[in-house]
């Protein structure tokens, strides 16, 4: 890299907060390329993650609309689909292979590209330096690399949509043998190779990001910012990064073995397979092995997605209730407990795939244990709201929506966590309903809450409130209307991932329900377009922010200039004297973290 890059890095790194050195990043020449493209400023990188994530959310959401059309209206023909998808929708009807490809891509894109990179990539990057009081990340250069690895992963994944045999179509979990054998399905040919390359790049991106987040939180806090004075957002991002750094490498080792199985004739996952009547030479492999390696990441991944949303919801609920967060240490403790338990429950995804039932019993116990820290968090959110002076900003509504979804989705988790109930419920729409509500939609709500709340800091303008309210209510009501009925379908035994249900008499009566779900999902998708319009319109035309601290919040990011430059604070980094949640203390509406503790102040 250029010497200039290392120069900047040295500066931002080595200036400790106590010194009075002013960082004026204007003193070296900033071109369009270094400012907006290969930027090392954590705020710009955060926006890059966010906008790339939104691009993927649009694609992944559109995919779900298309396959929902198939599920809702299996007999109907949509000529425009053929225009859009060509061969995949011959005669205006989605082909089975294309359906599986869309389902797979929807899962991969939403889980990894939107809710991992788009969520923790955006907000860890944006908020960690701003809220701990640092000029930038521990290594701005690695941070930039993290984004560009993600960008390259995106390009590779996107290109897999355009290959002749289609993208990978064996489900986002990519279980072998389907994912290991090119002969198994068209999507398992070059589409799967691109999928693996893209995911490997993505893992590298996540690791680089995660290393930086941890190092920044532990090393770069400003004076007075002890760990127990950190806002809960930072605790959540910190644990998210720990989860990612410890679990993604295991996924990578699983992928490496899979690559060798695909191309070099090894038999890690393959044994005794017949394909089109031909016996394969592979012997001695075990498909379950992949599942262990995959879910050792896969389960922490759920919390990688969820924890940032939890952290941001905690912060936003407290700020907009004008009340201190209830049980700060319990919140940190429960985040910690969730982080530990996240590593010990992976096999509950494998209750029916040949796991020893005796082992299953332990995983049931550990899985149900997660209910304890989760319930602590819910209790604390509700008690934070209790008797609060609530400001119903769009961010606050989304944060409250997050709590609602987390409760209703979490409760069905108790059903699924039991290995015996799982015999009936596994691979049905009950599972779809559960994880979409608790992980997918809830985390999306956390993300929306974050965007509405920190948008003024990102772009020095506000999002349009009216559009925000419409967006919230349509999404909130729509999410429940889409996923609530799926519980009934699942309890009735309707299997997930199926292209059509017309051969089952028993699922015929769900026909109209499926149509209903599909129509609502189209409406909800349109509401997201409305949000995107709002987002991009407001970047240039939104109402300008005129005060430094528009929400009356205590955290450090609101002590920076309205449009902070690279380096965040124009002068010295402020010193921190208290925790982040002194709302309504001693008759004052809020007391920022930088306010020194006065002699006659009451204890909190």
């Amino acid at each position, binding site marked *: 890299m250029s010497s200039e890059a290392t120069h900047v890095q040295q*500066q931002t*790194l*080595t*200036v*400790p907060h*106590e*010194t009075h*050195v002013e960082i004026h990043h204007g003193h070296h020449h900033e071109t369009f390329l270094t400012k907006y493209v290969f930027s090392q400023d954590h705020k710009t990188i955060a926006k890059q993650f966010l906008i790339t994530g939104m691009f993927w959310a649009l694609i992944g959401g559109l995919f779900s609309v298309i396959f929902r059309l198939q599920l809702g209206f299996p007999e109907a023909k949509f000529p425009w689909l053929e225009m859009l998808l060509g061969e995949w929708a011959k005669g205006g009807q989605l082909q089975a292979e294309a359906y599986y490809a869309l389902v797979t891509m929807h899962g991969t894109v939403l889980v990894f590209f939107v809710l991992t990179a788009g969520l923790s990539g955006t907000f860890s990057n944006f908020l960690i330096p701003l809220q701990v009081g640092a000029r930038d990340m*521990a*290594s701005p250069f*690695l941070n930039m690399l993290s984004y560009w690895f993600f960008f390259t992963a995106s390009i590779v994944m996107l290109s897999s949509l355009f290959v002749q045999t289609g993208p990978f179509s064996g489900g986002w979990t990519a279980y072998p043998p389907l994912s290991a054998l090119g002969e198994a399905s068209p999507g398992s040919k070059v589409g799967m190779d691109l999928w693996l390359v893209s995911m490997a790049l993505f893992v590298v991106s996540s*690791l680089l990001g*995660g*290393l*930086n987040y*941890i*190092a*920044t939180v*532990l*090393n*770069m806090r400003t004076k007075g910012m002890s760990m127990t004075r950190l806002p809960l957002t930072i605790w959540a991002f910190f644990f998210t990064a720990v989860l990612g*750094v*410890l*679990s*993604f*490498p*295991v996924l*990578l*080792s*699983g992928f*490496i*073995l899979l690559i*060798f199985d695909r191309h*070099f*004739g*090894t*038999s*890690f996952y393959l044994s005794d397979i017949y394909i089109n009547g031909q016996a394969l*030479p592979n*012997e*001695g*492999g*075990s498909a379950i*092995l992949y599942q*262990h*390696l995959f879910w*050792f990441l896969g389960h922490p991944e759920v919390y990688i997605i969820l924890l940032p949303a939890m952290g941001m919801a905690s912060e936003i609920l407290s700020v907009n209730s004008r009340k201190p967060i209830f049980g700060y240490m319990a919140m940190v403790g429960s985040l910690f407990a969730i982080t530990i338990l996240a590593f010990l429950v992976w096999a509950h995804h494998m209750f029916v795939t040949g796991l020893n039932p005796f082992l299953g019993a332990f995983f049931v116990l550990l899985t149900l244990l997660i209910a304890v820290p989760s319930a602590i968090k819910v209790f604390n959110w509700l008690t934070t709201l209790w008797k609060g002076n609530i400001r119903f900003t769009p961010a606050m509504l989304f944060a409250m929506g997050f709590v609602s979804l987390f409760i209703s989705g979490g409760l069905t988790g108790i059903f699924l966590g039991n290995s015996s109930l799982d015999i009936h419920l596994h691979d049905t729409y009950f599972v779809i309903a559960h994880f979409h509500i608790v992980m997918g939609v809830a985390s999306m709500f956390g993300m929306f809450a974050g965007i509405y709340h920190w948008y003024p800091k990102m772009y020095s303008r506000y999002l349009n409130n009216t559009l925000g309210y419409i967006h919230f209510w349509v999404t909130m009501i729509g999410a429940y209307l889409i996923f609530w009925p799926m519980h009934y379908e699942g309890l009735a035994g309707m299997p997930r991932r199926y292209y059509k249900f017309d051969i089952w008499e028993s699922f015929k009566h769900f026909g109209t329900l499926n149509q209903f779900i599909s129509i609502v999902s189209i409406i909800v998708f349109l509401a997201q377009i409305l949000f995107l319009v709002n987002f991009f319109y407001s970047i240039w035309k939104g109402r300008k922010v005129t005060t430094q601290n528009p929400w009356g919040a205590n955290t450090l990011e609101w002590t920076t200039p309205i449009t902070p430059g690279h380096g965040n604070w124009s002068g010295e980094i402020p010193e921190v004297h208290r925790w982040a949640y002194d709302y309504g203390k001693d008759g004052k509406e809020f007391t920022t973290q930088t306010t020194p503790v006065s002699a006659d102040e009451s204890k909190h």
Partner: protein
Amino acid sequence: MEKVMSSESSKKMHPHKFTLWIAIGSITMMFAGFTSAYIVKSNQAGWQPVQMPKIFFLSTVLILASSLTIYLAQKAMSAREMAKYRTLISTTAVLGLAFVVTQFFGFSELWQQKITFKESVAGSFFYIITGVHALHVIGGVIALAVLFSRAYSSKTKFYSSTPVETAGLYWHFVDILWVYLFVFFLLVS
């Protein structure tokens, strides 16, 4: 700024070095994934263990020696004995390369015994686990090569000990990782 920096770094670890510590945790998890997969597989039917090639004992000696030389290089750096530092750094890199070469000889020895990807699951694991480790060693050699060229460059006088400390930490890590893998393969197979 330099002055403030040194007073600061005496209290706190340099962020690069700290980041490396976390990365070490991450890489460890990767090999934990590999070796636990190996253990799981080795308990299943039809498992035929692989005999470790003899030359891997030599690999072990080489990489242990390289850990010693990089340690001495660090000492030379802090004593500002730049000539000695350069020799030691390059010795370390050469030992690292020699390690990779002996690994390669070991692989071809096994391959000739019909332990190939198609024939032996244990052998496949062995190749991949040690191969991924060798890639990490090559990464270390590249880092050393960068340090080496910096030490010879006449333009910059570079006396910061952080890069060599960071490289040293990484080098000791791949060394310990190798010792772990070596003992692991001796015991499990």
